[in-house]
């Protein structure tokens, strides 16, 4: 029981279903009103109910428990250590000094909690002291004031033992004072100390409880006026019980829940102590001569002399103890693992690619793609769904941004070695699964096809002699919420949602071509045959280029930054490279580790676009400011697209908005520009919306409903900035620092996970202690609350 308790102490906060700052908001679900204070067992997500203000009781208890137990343990350790040593030495004195006895007696007259009360009451209420300092004071004072009682009991026991005959014998043999204490007396008292230690833990918890009833909470009392209420700063258990004291008349669960846990805590320690005591007592006690009614329940275990000592001999208690240790460790591992996999939106599929690509001198590509699809959901698949984007640019397409056309011909599709039926409509490639394959968790898909690249296309594009292969392979859609999340291709914003995959691409190019790609290590210039690999990336982009000049530099942690450019534009490649390096270094410093080994920047005609580890920038535009912003923007995407995933169709703002915010923060926090200038592009977008008279729109709409890209890019950036301006005092000194810290914490939490609007709101709500309604200005929260 005590082990379970310790387990909760360590992993409690991880298990907590809600964070301390998240509030249950009054809501209707299925015609039922959920409003705080919620009774226990009424809602499955608030098993112990909430308090009057909507805070989840179970979470508070799980957070508070560790304080309670560790503080109690700390106090006990300190006082036992000092008390025992002083007591042992005081016990062997020839004559105990009278003042010591007088002091002990006097001390035991005054209840200890009174002393603590008088000491803590002037400093506890709305204290300026830090929580940790207050806890420190409590530990120190509580230890000091209870040392005398320990000293006195240890002293008496020592004195008793000191009179024993064997001590006389040891003395006669010339044993010194210290030897007597540590070799002769201490071993006798070891077991007593153990029992005492555990009992004292209970005692300290009781002490905390008594103080809590007087509104002194360990770690500080937050006092609110009008009406006067007292709140525990640490949510320590005794404090929780104390602050809920007035709930005895109604909503008793608010009081009972922490009290019950506290009870469980103390009872488990008491039982442990009792068990040990019974054990030791039965071992050493002489059998009584009369019927007393106090017979021990435990059979005495006697020392067996003359038996060989074995390192491990099997016995019931030992096995039970080992099982306990194993269960403890196992449960710990499980909790940590489960916690990690619960972050973000779950994906029910995973795809890994092994692709052979061959290009002939006419610019025709032949591809052999081996795709391994894993079913991680609990549903059977009837079909496999892929994005096959080269197909949408076939002759007769209607996209304005694509000048040329492409060919895309699938020649053969096999699944698990058998020929498979498939449908190709637009960019949706659906491969039927034979009925005997449906229950398999792994599918090996082989697709053979060939394609050409449209002239001056959109992303997937041929510019002069260069081929930009974007979304050129059959990209597995993501299986989410029981179905394939596949939306049709659209011009403009990205429509394809992919998960994290490993890639192994071997290629063969005509003479004179070089390759830059998503891969961690790209081949040297002019190498036209080989293999490139990438791990955990969402897309695999390849730029097949000829006659490009390469500029190189290095950012932090040995990340190589390369820039490919022609010389027929007015932008300075060196300056652009320097900017990229500066921006990347800034993000490495402020947000976190860059996920790849190198960053490639390709300057050529076409879209501004991010791919993992490589970005394309159009240097042929006049707006130099926009050109620079774009470089920073695409680098920021390496974090908020490349690593923190999202569905670009249904939650497009999640990567674009946050990336735009991160971009502007580079200028705001990194370059110390003023807000108007740093967030200029977002303001510009919003003004454009106003001029066009488009009114207002939420940011979390699917992209086929978006009225203007400003709602996806500019609005979230400005709103997040606004929020940080309002709330930064909660978290730090300046909006700059808090803004970057927010991005960093967000990045660290959702690395290699998927975020949607709901996850973002949960995270942010918690981060800045705001209600969900806070986002109503720009997010349709009605879709999120469920």
């Amino acid at each position: 029981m005590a082990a379970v308790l310790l387990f909760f102490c360590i992993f409690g906060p991880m298990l907590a279903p809600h964070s301390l700052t998240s509030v249950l908001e009054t809501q209707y679900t299925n015609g039922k009103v959920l409003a705080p204070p919620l009774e226990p067992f009424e809602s499955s997500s608030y098993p112990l109910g909430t308090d009057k203000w909507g805070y989840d009781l179970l979470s508070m208890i799980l957070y508070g428990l560790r304080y309670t137990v560790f503080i109690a343990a700390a106090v006990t350790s300190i006082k036992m250590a000092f008390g025992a040593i002083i007591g042992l030495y005081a016990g062997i004195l020839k004559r105990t000094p009278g003042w010591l006895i007088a002091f002990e007696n006097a001390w035991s007259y005054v209840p200890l909690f009174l002393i603590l009360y008088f000491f803590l009451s002037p400093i506890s209420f709305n204290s300026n002291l830090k929580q940790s300092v207050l806890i420190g004071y409590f530990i120190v004072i509580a230890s000091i004031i209870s040392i005398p009682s320990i000293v006195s009991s240890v002293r008496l026991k020592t004195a008793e033992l000191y009179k024993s005959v064997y001590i006389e014998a040891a003395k006669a043999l010339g044993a010194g004072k210290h030897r007597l204490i540590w070799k002769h007396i201490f071993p006798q008292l070891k077991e007593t100390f153990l029992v005492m230690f555990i009992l004292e833990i209970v005692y300290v918890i009781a002490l905390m409880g008594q103080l809590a009833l007087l509104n002194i909470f360990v770690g500080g009392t937050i006092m609110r006026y009008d009406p006067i209420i007292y709140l525990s700063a640490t949510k320590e258990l005794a404090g929780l019980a104390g602050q809920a004291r007035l709930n005895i008349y109604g909503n008793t669960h608010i009081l009972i829940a922490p009290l019950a846990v506290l009870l469980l805590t103390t009872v488990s320690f008491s039982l442990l102590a009792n068990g040990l005591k019974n054990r030791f007592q039965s071992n050493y006690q002489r059998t009584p001569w009369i019927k007393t009614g106090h017979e021990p329940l435990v059979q005495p275990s006697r020392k067996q002399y003359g038996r060989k000592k074995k390192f491990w001999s099997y016995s019931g208690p030992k096995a039970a103890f080992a099982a306990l240790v194993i269960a403890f460790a196992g449960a710990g591992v499980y909790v940590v693992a489960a916690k990690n996999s619960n972050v973000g939106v779950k994906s029910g599929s995973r795809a890994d690619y092994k692709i052979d690509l061959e290009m002939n001198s006419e610019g025709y590509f032949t591809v052999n793609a081996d795709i391994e699809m894993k079913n991680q959901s609990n549903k059977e698949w009837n079909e496999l769904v892929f994005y096959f984007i080269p197909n949408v640019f076939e002759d007769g397409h209607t996209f304005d941004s694509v000048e040329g056309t492409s060919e895309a011909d699938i020649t053969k599709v096999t699944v698990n070695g058998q020929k498979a039926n498939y449908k190709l409509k637009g960019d949706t490639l659906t491969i039927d699964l034979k009925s005997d394959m449906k229950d398999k968790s792994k599918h090996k898909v082989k697709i053979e096809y060939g394609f050409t690249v449209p002239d001056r296309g959109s992303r997937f594009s041929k510019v002069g002699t260069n081929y930009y292969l974007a979304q050129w392979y059959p990209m597995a859609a993501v299986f989410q919420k029981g179905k394939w999340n596949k939306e049709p291709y659209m011009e403009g914003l990205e429509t394809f949602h992919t998960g994290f995959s490993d890639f192994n691409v071997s290629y063969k190019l005509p003479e004179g071509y070089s390759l830059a790609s998503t891969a961690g290590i790209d081949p040297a210039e002019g190498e036209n045959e080989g293999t490139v690999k990438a791990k955990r990336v969402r897309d695999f982009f390849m730029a097949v280029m000829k006659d490009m000049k390469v500029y190189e530099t290095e950012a932090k942690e040995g990340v190589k930054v390369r820039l490919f450019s022609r010389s027929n534009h007015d932008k300075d490649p060196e300056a652009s490279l320097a900017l990229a390096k500066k921006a990347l270094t800034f993000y490495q410093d402020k947000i976190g580790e860059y996920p790849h080994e190198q960053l490639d920047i390709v300057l050529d005609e076409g879209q501004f676009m991010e791919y993992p580890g490589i970005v394309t920038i159009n240097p042929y535009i006049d707006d130099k400011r926009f050109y620079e912003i774009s470089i920073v923007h695409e680098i920021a995407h390496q974090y908020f697209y490349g690593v923190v995933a999202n569905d670009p169709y249904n939650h497009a703002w999640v990567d674009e908005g946050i990336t735009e915010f991160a971009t502007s923060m580079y200028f705001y926090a990194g370059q110390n520009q003023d807000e108007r200038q740093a967030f200029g592009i977002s303001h510009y977008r919003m003004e454009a919306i106003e001029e066009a008279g488009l009114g207002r729109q939420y940011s979390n709409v699917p992209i086929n409903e978006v009225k203007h890209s400003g709602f996806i890019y500019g609005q979230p950036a400005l709103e997040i900035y606004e929020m940080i301006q309002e709330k930064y005092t909660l978290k730090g000194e300046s909006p700059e620092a808090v803004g970057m810290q927010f991005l960093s914490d967000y990045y660290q939490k959702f690395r290699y996970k998927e975020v949607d609007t709901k996850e973002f709101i949960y995270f942010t709500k918690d981060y800045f202690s705001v209600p969900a309604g806070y986002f109503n200005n720009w997010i349709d929260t009605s879709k999120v609350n469920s």
Partner: protein
Amino acid sequence: MVRALQQIFIIIILILLLAALPKIISVDPSSGSLEWSFDSLPQIYGDFILEVSGGSLGTYQLGQQTRPIAEDIADNFLTSLQIVLIAVNASLIISLIFGVFISRFRLTKLFGAFLNILASIPDFIIIVMSMLLAVKIYKTTGIRVISLRPDGGALNTWFPTVLAAIAPTLYLFKLVSVKYYQTSGEDYIKTAVAKGMGLNYINFQHVYKNLEPFIKSELVKVISLAIGNLFIIEHIMNVSGITKFIFQSNEVQPIAIGLFAMLLISLFVYISIRFIFYLFKRGFIYE
């Protein structure tokens, strides 16, 4: 005698120090550290001694009112004394009877097990739980078990008395039963059994006599336990006892007076128990 004087001296110092603590400790808001203003100590104690030597106990704040302590303390003192006196004496008698004299019966074993379970629960939880229970009883049956109004009369005091008795009972019962069990293994018990003496006789003449010193030595702790709980109980149950002076003010005067009153209560209780022991010995034990 010297030791007793020493003790009294130390206690008085302790009480005065405690009473002054709220006055001398403060937190420096700018640096966020503790401030000890020891230089105001002579002033505080000077005032206190002056007040007391003037024959008055000083005043205390009750809400907006300032009232002289002397006028109110008698009532409050008696309430508290009554509670502790009954509680401790009852607990001693209960634990002796159940722990020793009738402990061998099956029914008593049940009672012992019940006490053991209670003992593993911290006092304050018992207090809060029992209040919850009382409220629950009132809600479901309409029977008013307790009253939290200070002028509730017996309804206001019987429950606190019971609660105050719980902690000392548990402590004493444990002590008594452990010692009883240990004593029962001694050789003189064996001799007594061998001589064919009755169990009750052995319990009275041999066991009790050897238990008494242990109880006496733990008596101070038992009373202190009761007093400690008394504070909590009075505070949360609105009993107007001496606690009123201690928790409702920041002044040195009422706190010190309250603590001294508490000391006096302990003394009375201690004497009363020694008196009971004396009577018991006179009545039952042949010396």
